[in-house]
């Protein structure tokens, strides 16, 4: 199996670096070939609308699609939820609106590029659940995460607004994957609550309570660890626990890892080299070594 991987700015050596390392590891293990999109640009995620209109953001995505299409017709996997939604929004509107379509084509031609609208964008969870499949994942597990209590945090842009592979209100795919790894996916009603996303930094006072709510829900339901599939969620949930503790006089210290890091560990891969656990701010090694029986 061959796929384009659109890494995006966060995974490419940024805050989502451990997400990228673990994805590359599990793809290697599963025999998935990763095709890069050469000279890709930012998807215009987060808060770029402050400085750009919708057509400008669309052009960013159009260029990436055009570059990919010139190289092949594989599905594009966008691990970052913000990239996923920007690319998906582009495709929906490009293929569903004649005016958008002709405007984009006119502008693309100025840059000597062309896109036909045929490439599909997929979320990493969609790829794991529907293409790799639960049975294959179970088969490949060498070190099950015995009884590890995980709160699978889905976030917003992972499933909303199109809900192409999971429910927008009660998503379950991440929990199925966690259980295939031998972990216990705890009840976690706030798994689709927003963490503050791209405005977290400038609006920290308003967004800290959002994260606190999510952490409380995970911990109160017995989670020892939170898993996620979005670099923004990972950053906001992990990095700011100290700030929350300062503000609320609390003692949050719960590790937040990428789902793909857990998969790499359950596949029996190296905790550092393959799962990049040393990239995490709140060390998850103790809990995970305990789960895999070391």
């Amino acid at each position, binding site marked *: 199996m061959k796929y384009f991987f659109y890494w995006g*700015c*966060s995974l*490419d*050596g*940024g*805050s*989502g*670096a*451990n997400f990228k390392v673990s994805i590359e590891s599990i793809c290697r293990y599963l025999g998935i070939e990763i095709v890069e999109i050469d*000279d*890709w*640009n*930012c998807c*215009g995620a*987060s*808060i*770029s*609308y*402050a*400085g*750009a*209109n*919708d*057509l*400008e953001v*669309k*052009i*960013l995505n159009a*260029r990436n699609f055009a570059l990919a299409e010139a190289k092949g017709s594989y599905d594009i996997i966008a691990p970052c939820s*913000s990239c996923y*939604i920007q690319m998906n929004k582009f495709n929906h509107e490009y293929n569903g609106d004649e005016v958008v379509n002709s*405007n984009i084509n006119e*502008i*693309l031609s*100025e*840059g*000597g590029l062309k896109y036909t609208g045929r490439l599909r964008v997929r979320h990493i969870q969609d790829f794991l659940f529907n293409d790799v499949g639960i049975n294959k994942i179970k088969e490949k597990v060498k070190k099950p995460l015995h009884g590890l209590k995980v709160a699978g945090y889905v976030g*917003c*842009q992972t499933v*909303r*607004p199109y809900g192409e592979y999971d429910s*927008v209100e009660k998503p379950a795919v991440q929990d199925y994957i966690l259980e295939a790894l031998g972990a216990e996916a705890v009840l976690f009603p706030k798994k689709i*609550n*927003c963490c*503050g*996303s*791209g*405005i977290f*930094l*400038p*609006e920290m006072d*308003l*967004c800290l309570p*959002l994260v606190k709510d999510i952490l409380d829900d995970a911990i109160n339901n017995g989670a020892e660890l939170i898993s996620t599939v979005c670099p923004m969620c990972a950053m906001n949930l992990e*990095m700011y626990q100290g700030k929350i503790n300062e503000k609320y006089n609390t003692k949050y210290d719960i590790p937040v890892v990428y789902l793909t890091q857990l998969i790499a560990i359950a596949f029996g891969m190296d905790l550092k080299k393959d799962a*990049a656990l*040393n*990239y*995490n*701010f709140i060390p998850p090694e103790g809990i995970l070594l305990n789960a895999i029986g070391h």
Partner: protein
Amino acid sequence: MSDNVRYEPTFAKEVFKNVDFGEKIKMCMQCGICSASCPLKDEMDYSPRNIFTMIRAGKRDEVLKSMAIMLCTSCYSCKVRCPRSIPVVDIMHGLAHYSINLGSIPRKDTANFGVEFWKQIYKLGRIDEKDLPRKYFFVDGMIDGIKNSIQMVDMGLIMLLHHRMKLMPEKKIKGIKSLRKMLDKASAMGKGGAKA
């Protein structure tokens, strides 16, 4: 005379013309599910549903200076739940963009952060995660910048030590000139008015 608000379509027409997805406001039936779904609704001066009504009532200044249009976390709950399929989130983004272009600056810090975010995409073709907060912290000048940076320096160090920040600055993409040419054309062809 009562305080009843009357329809005053001048501003609504301006919104339909200049704000991305603005014409979709026509579909709103004021059910309020967007507001009920919004994670930051309690922090806003006006809820998204109120913003839509105010646009119809011609409350131009109140809408364009409202912090609500700059407080969208892009969670997409409103867009998913709207029974009339209005892309509420996209309209809020469009309003924020239009307001900033007109110089209204609805919520200074967040607006500055967003504008810096876009400038960096235009300059490099990508986002440099370490450079972005730095630019944003120094937007009010040197002294505030140093104060802001000191508050966050511990976090930057932690990220660097955990391989989650590049030491070297992000380079421009190879096709940056052609990308900028296309973006300039999109800026002129799209909605949002001239850049301030």
